[in-house]
């Protein structure tokens, strides 16, 4: 119990110190690499940001929850440093470099702390330094968490965008739609492709659907299965599916793997597939007679 009280007392002492020396700490931090590189325009702005962080740390210290990442005081830090570390990662810094920069913030405060306390109170100074180290360690953890979290969010958002961007359904002709597939066709993507394609078949009243796999790097048995599923679903909707863009290498792979695509109409290129669909619809595309030639 007594030990706990001492720890709390030390933490509060540290909090009081942080509050007292707020101005000096902020001035020194503003010159540190982390703040200097983010707030390139105005130093005052950097000082303000530093003050906000010092205030938050002082609040955490006052509550004595030095090791608690979820302490309410860190909320403000999360906001402030999250923005900064995000801008640092955009500049190409990896999380451990950012963590090093945070660690660099400890030294100036430690120097101030040693100067602030009496020469005689070695014990107290030492205890406060340890508390400060713990607090800065927690701060580092908080910032790392924020950075990693921001990275995860970015990845999730990009994955979603990739799904949407990579599977457009194009109307080639009245009653003919095409899906140019780019990239590896996995289960999630083939599901999206299937849904988009079926919706387009209903929306465009399409009789023919062309799946173009020119941009698919490899076709293995799994990809072939996805293709066959999509073709079967389109057929259930009353549309005929044509798979186009089968490069010679892919044709050979399919044969070597023993995949039977016999039930699927295939064409070498998108143009061939379109020509096939047009022919089946009874549409003939022919060059306009030359201007000079007189029509009979």
């Amino acid at each position, binding site marked *: 119990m007594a030990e706990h009280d001492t720890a709390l007392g030390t933490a509060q002492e540290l909090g009081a110190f942080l509050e007292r020396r707020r101005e000096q700490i902020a001035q020194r931090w503003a010159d540190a690499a982390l703040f200097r590189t983010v707030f390139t325009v105005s130093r005052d702005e950097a000082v303000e940001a530093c003050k906000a962080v010092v205030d938050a740390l002082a609040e955490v210290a006052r509550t004595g929850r030095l090791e608690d990442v979820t302490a309410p005081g860190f909320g403000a830090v999360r906001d402030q440093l999250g923005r900064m570390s995000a801008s640092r990662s955009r500049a190409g810094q990896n999380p451990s470099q950012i963590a090093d920069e945070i660690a660099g913030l400890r030294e100036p405060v430690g120097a101030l702390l040693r100067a602030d306390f009496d020469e005689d109170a070695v014990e107290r100074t030492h205890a406060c330094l340890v508390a400060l180290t713990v607090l800065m360690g927690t701060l580092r953890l908080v910032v790392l968490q924020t950075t990693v979290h921001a990275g995860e969010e970015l990845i999730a958002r990009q994955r979603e965008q990739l799904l949407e961007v990579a599977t457009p359904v194009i109307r080639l002709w009245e009653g003919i739609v095409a899906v140019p597939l780019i990239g590896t066709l996995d289960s999630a993507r083939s599901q999206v492709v299937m849904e988009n394609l079926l919706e387009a078949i209903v929306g465009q009243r399409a009789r023919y659907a062309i799946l173009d796999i020119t941009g698919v790097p490899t076709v293995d048995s799994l990809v072939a299965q996805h293709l066959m599923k999509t073709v079967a679903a389109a057929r*259930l909707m*009353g549309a005929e599916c044509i798979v186009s863009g089968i490069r010679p290498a892919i044709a050979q792979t399919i044969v070597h793997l023993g995949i039977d695509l016999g039930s699927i109409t295939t064409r070498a290129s998108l143009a061939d597939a379109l020509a096939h669909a047009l022919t089946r619809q009874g549409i003939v595309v022919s060059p306009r007679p030359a201007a000079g030639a007189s029509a009979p």
Partner: protein
Amino acid sequence: MTGLPTSRPAPAPVPVLALGDVLLVTLRGELHDGAAEQLQDDLAHRIASGPAPLQGVVIDISGVEIVDSFLGRVLAEIAAAASLLATRTVLAGMRPAVAITLVELGLTLPGPVTALDVEAALSLLGRAPVSALPVPPEGGV
């Protein structure tokens, strides 16, 4: 199909409409065992006794939200029976979600011909505007 329970109250039979030389069946919601059996009987009789050059049977399932293995089998059996009686069956108006579920279940219904909706089905059977014919007139430009 002989061992089906008969104690259940008889559901309303599914109507079979004759549109000229095409029979139209519209399914709505869930199809119970009894109704399915009766529909298969009705259709077989109507096909056998119907107008001589019957173009085909159109089954409209746009109002069906769930096609399970039972309904899938019923549809396949109808198509097979109709084909024995020299008549084509067209499955019309399947919803995208239903199509995806069927494919995931491995039920690809290879029997019946499919069409986007009733209009497309009728044109497929050669009853609708000639311009919408899916098969090109050979040699005619």
